[in-house]
């Protein structure tokens, strides 16, 4: 009687004529083994593996007991992941204001608000107190603090430094990140030099970028971003700068030219984060944004391969969303607390507030996330965790990147780990 079987959450792809890789999306384990052994495992024959190898594949969640249901495996691993609080992520909104009006912005609701434009000191103190109480309860050791907005750098430098000082006083290791549009860097060198990761979006060559990422008065921002970044990097060479490029059918063809131009301006001491542009409205779809989404995946992989050839380490595009975990919390300027940064300023989406000590019903609905059978049967579920709930709400339907991942995952793994 068969004792083991391969789990559903394995991505299996050939490496060469004799070996293949298995990437398990639940455990993140990646192994290489002979293709003929994988075929035997797929046929239920485990007799050519010794017990230590079997034990290791069990640990990697690549195989499981024959009678275990995949949905039981995923949901158990997911619940364990959701409950962990050793490492948490805090998103702070220092400002709801943005000085830009990008054509694809999904946060324009923030800019219409007249109240609570900026985080004030008394709300910050309450936020820190809320975090202090909970990290003690949760035995938290690491916090990643993300500055988000609006545009976080529209806040006063003094306030941004106050936030850093408050977090520095917590008894945890802190990692700071900021997502910025890059147009206000010159105003905030003192703040930014204390940030571990600075992510700036550049969406193409100058004309392409300027057609999408414009100021509130309609001007392009490419030259300003490049010039400010150049100046910042020259005085802070150890800073970790990540250039995010949202890729669609308009900028994927010249993607290598785009990164070459950015490298020529900023040097090689930067990282690129390519993301397929995804629809956040039921009036937009993949057909409009990408034509064929696989072509976007191909362009992103080709560009990563190019980056590796010029000595820049590629970065894996991940889809993990912590909205239903105990480790992700977002603090708005008004003291409302959310589970997702895209909910900010929509008070009907809040899960609690710094002034109260109970959780709204939103919290319990978000935490009790259900996965349909299509997702539970999908090998990518450990990687995408069912996709973005906010996007699902806005699109009024589930959005699936399976076509993209079918090409992207094996190819990016070959580039990252197999020198291909």
């Amino acid at each position, binding site marked *: 009687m068969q004792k083991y079987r391969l789990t559903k959450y394995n991505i299996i792809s050939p490496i060469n004529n004799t070996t293949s890789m298995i990437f*398990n999306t639940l455990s*993140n384990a990646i192994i290489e083994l002979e293709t003929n052994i994988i075929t035997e495992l797929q046929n239920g024959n485990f007799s050519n*593996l010794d017990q230590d*190898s079997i034990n290791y594949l069990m640990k990697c969640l690549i195989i499981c007991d024959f009678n275990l249901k995949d949905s039981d495996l995923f949901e158990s691993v997911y619940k364990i992941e959701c409950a962990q609080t050793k490492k948490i992520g805090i998103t702070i909104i220092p400002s709801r204001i943005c000085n830009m009006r990008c054509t694809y912005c999904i946060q324009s609701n923030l800019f219409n608000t007249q109240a609570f434009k900026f985080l004030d000191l008394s709300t910050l103190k309450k936020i820190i107190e809320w975090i202090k109480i909970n990290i003690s309860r949760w035995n938290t050791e690491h916090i990643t603090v993300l500055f988000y907005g609006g545009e976080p750098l529209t806040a006063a430098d003094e306030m941004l430094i106050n936030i850093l000082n408050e977090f520095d006083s917590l008894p945890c290791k802190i990692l700071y990140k900021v997502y910025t549009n890059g147009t206000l860097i010159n105003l905030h060198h003192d703040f930014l030099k204390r940030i*571990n990761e600075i992510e700036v979006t550049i969406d193409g060559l100058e004309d392409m970028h300027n057609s999408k990422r414009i100021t509130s008065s309609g001007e392009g921002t490419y030259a300003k971003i490049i010039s400010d970044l150049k100046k910042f990097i020259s005085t802070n060479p150890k800073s*970790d700068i990540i250039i995010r490029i949202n890729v669609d059918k308009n900028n994927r063809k010249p993607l290598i030219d785009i990164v070459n131009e950015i490298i020529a301006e900023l040097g090689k001491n930067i990282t690129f984060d390519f993301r397929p542009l995804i629809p956040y409205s039921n009036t937009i779809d993949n057909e409009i944004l990408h034509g064929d989404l696989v072509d976007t995946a191909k362009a992103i992989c080709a560009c990563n391969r190019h980056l590796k050839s010029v000595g820049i380490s590629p970065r894996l595009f991940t889809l*993990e969303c912590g909205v239903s975990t105990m480790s992700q919390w977002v603090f708005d300027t008004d003291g409302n607390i959310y589970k997702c940064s895209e909910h900010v300023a929509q008070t009907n989406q809040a899960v609690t507030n710094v002034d109260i000590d109970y959780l709204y019903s939103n919290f319990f609905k978000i935490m009790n996330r259900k996965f349909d059978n299509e997702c539970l049967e999908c090998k990518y579920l450990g990687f995408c965790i069912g996709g973005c709930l906010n996007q699902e709400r806005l699109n009024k339907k589930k959005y699936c990147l399976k076509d993209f991942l079918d090409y992207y995952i094996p190819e990016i793994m070959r580039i990252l780990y*197999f020198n291909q």
Partner: protein
Amino acid sequence: MVHIMKGEIFMKKIKVIVEPNTTIHKGSQKTPDFMIR
């Protein structure tokens, strides 16, 4: 339980590329890895 390390080839069959429950590749080497599971 035998602890199998990255890069080790186990019983001449399994080559471990990334150990389970460790950080997958995020490009930059400058930032600590506790931000991603």
